[in-house]
């Protein structure tokens, strides 16, 4: 925090001093604002394209849309109803919500065990979970698909993808949450124990209420990860009517390769929920990012 202040030179007093500062720091401002704008251009281009009429898209770049001022919502109408993206959007929600809640619950329980309830081989087991954090999905695709297909065709329902995402989210959940739980004040938990609270009661009444930021961090990560995932959904959701947006959009692309009005609207629909989650809960997201990356 302190560095921020020190990096900004002391406030100039007179108008001419201020002007000199502005000019000497000009390159810094130009570079920063330039990069920020550059970074926004692709997303803005997509957003604007999604509200333009097909002939306009084909004849002039989206950057002309400021002067042509001719917007439409028709692209969204056709992409949601005619191409089934509305349905796929709902599928994405159906896949994402349980695939976030399950690893959060199982991960929090396990993290509590690892943090506060001693048992044999606790450290060894925890280290194994730390190691599992970066196992690539590719080593699980084939055996899991076989497992799901052989046992009640789980890949024709959502159970398969829920379970697969739960397994892949768990190591991070256990790791992040355990590292947060161990920082909770020991006295508090000991006091609850002396009062005769069972471990489960301590978990529910003491640990969980105090750990909302950490739980939220993981929930956001997992939500974004599952919602944005393409590969696992591609393999584990065989039924086209159950596939999420990330899988359906490439199909749209292969059918309507150059129809950017539809593609842009579909991509924007896919982005909108994560962006809302991200902007409203950015604080937790960044906290989790820092905790996870600095410790990993």
């Amino acid at each position, binding site marked *: 925090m302190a*560095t*921020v202040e*020190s*990096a900004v030179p002391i406030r100039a007093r007179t108008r001419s001093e201020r002007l000199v500062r502005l000019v000497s720091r000009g390159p*810094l401002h130009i*570079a*920063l604002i330039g*990069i*920020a704008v550059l*970074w*926004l*251009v*692709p*997303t803005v*281009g*997509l957003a604007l394209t999604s509200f333009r009429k097909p002939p306009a898209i*084909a004849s*002039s*770049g989206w950057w002309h849309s400021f002067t042509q001022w001719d917007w439409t919502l028709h692209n969204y109408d056709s992409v949601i109803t005619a191409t089934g993206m509305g349905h796929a959007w709902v599928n994405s929600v159906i896949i994402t919500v349980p695939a976030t809640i399950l690893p959060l619950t*199982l991960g929090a329980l396990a993290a509590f*065990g*690892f943090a506060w*309830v001693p*048992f044999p081989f606790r450290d060894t*087991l925890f280290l194994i*979970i730390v*190691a599992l954090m*970066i*196992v*690539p999905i*590719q*080593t*699980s*695709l*084939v*055996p*899991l698909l*076989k*497992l799901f297909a052989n046992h009640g065709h789980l890949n024709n329902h959502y159970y398969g993808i829920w379970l697969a995402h*739960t*397994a*892949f989210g*768990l190591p991070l959940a256990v790791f992040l949450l355990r590292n947060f739980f161990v920082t909770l004040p020991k006295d508090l938990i000991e006091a609850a124990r002396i009062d005769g609270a069972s471990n489960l009661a301590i978990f529910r009444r003491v640990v969980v209420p105090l750990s909302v930021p950490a739980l939220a961090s993981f929930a956001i990560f997992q939500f974004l990860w599952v919602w*944005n995932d*393409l*590969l696992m959904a591609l*393999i584990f959701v065989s039924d086209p009517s159950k596939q999420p947006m990330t899988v359906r959009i490439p199909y749209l692309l292969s059918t309507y390769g150059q129809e*950017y009005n539809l*593609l*842009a609207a*579909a*991509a924007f629909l*896919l*982005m909108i929920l*994560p*962006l809302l989650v991200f902007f409203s809960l950015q604080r937790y997201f*960044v906290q989790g990012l820092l905790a996870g*990356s600095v*410790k*990993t």
Partner: protein
Amino acid sequence: MSTQPLPTPVAGPPPGGGLRKRAWSGFERFQGLLFVMPALVVLAIFLIYPAYYTIRLAFYESDFHFGFFHYLGVDNFKELLTNDPDFLDLSKFPPGGALINNLRWVIFYISLSLIIGLGLAVLAVRVRYERAVKTAIFVPMAIAATAVGIIWLLVYNTDSNIGVMNAVWHGVLGQHQVSWLGNPAIVNYALIFAYVWASVGFVMVVLSAAIKGIPMEIMEAARVDGAGEWNIFRRIMLPMLSLPISVVTIWLFINVIKVFDIIYVMTGGGPGTTSRVIAFTMYEETFHNGRPGYGAAVAVIMLVLIAPVMVLNVRRFRTEKVVA
């Protein structure tokens, strides 16, 4: 961990034989296991057992039923590394194949993300609108690779009336329109840049937090001694950021070994097979070419590439625990 010193009592054992640790009943001793058991069971069935199955499958010929058809020994690996130009082709220059492409990704994706992310982190702390800049850079982190693919297909469109890249290249600079994704010499770099665009925010946020953790006094002292901003960056900030930079590099490395979605959406590995990477070969061989054993060998190669990071993680965690 066995070297951890035990607390030694100063005045010898307390009278009366000392306090005995409360004897744990069997149930209490294993109560913790009840908490971790559901997670362990899920991990064992859906993560550990599949990894074992895949490693075994890599030594077999298999079919669409994913059975262990015919034992091949290391033939799958031999074929991949010596006789599959789509995976590794050293016969031409520059060399090609998924493995080489992935190496391009490792070099350019990691270095570009680090340089841009670090640069932004260092510069952004100096202005008052830091938050706004950071948000603009960070937003793509939340966007699915599928959407990133569509966004950049639009940017890279060959028609300068649609794609902003060609609008600048052709419309402003007067060059010929370029098919950024249709040219084998360019396609990999075009894909890498799109992914860098999506990842820089992460690098920037982590390094920016680390920069703010550097004690102000050190830099003030250097400034008073007349050190220029560049020297302060080179000799003070950079060394102090070495740990977060290494952490970020590891994250980028894992990311780049697993990269798949964006290639699947934007080029499908093409033109031809020129933009395939390791993960793409795994998918293609397993689910399209009906060679799960061969695909499993590719997955094992991925695992081997990532394994050093796994060891590093565990080791770092163990040392950290002894300190704490």
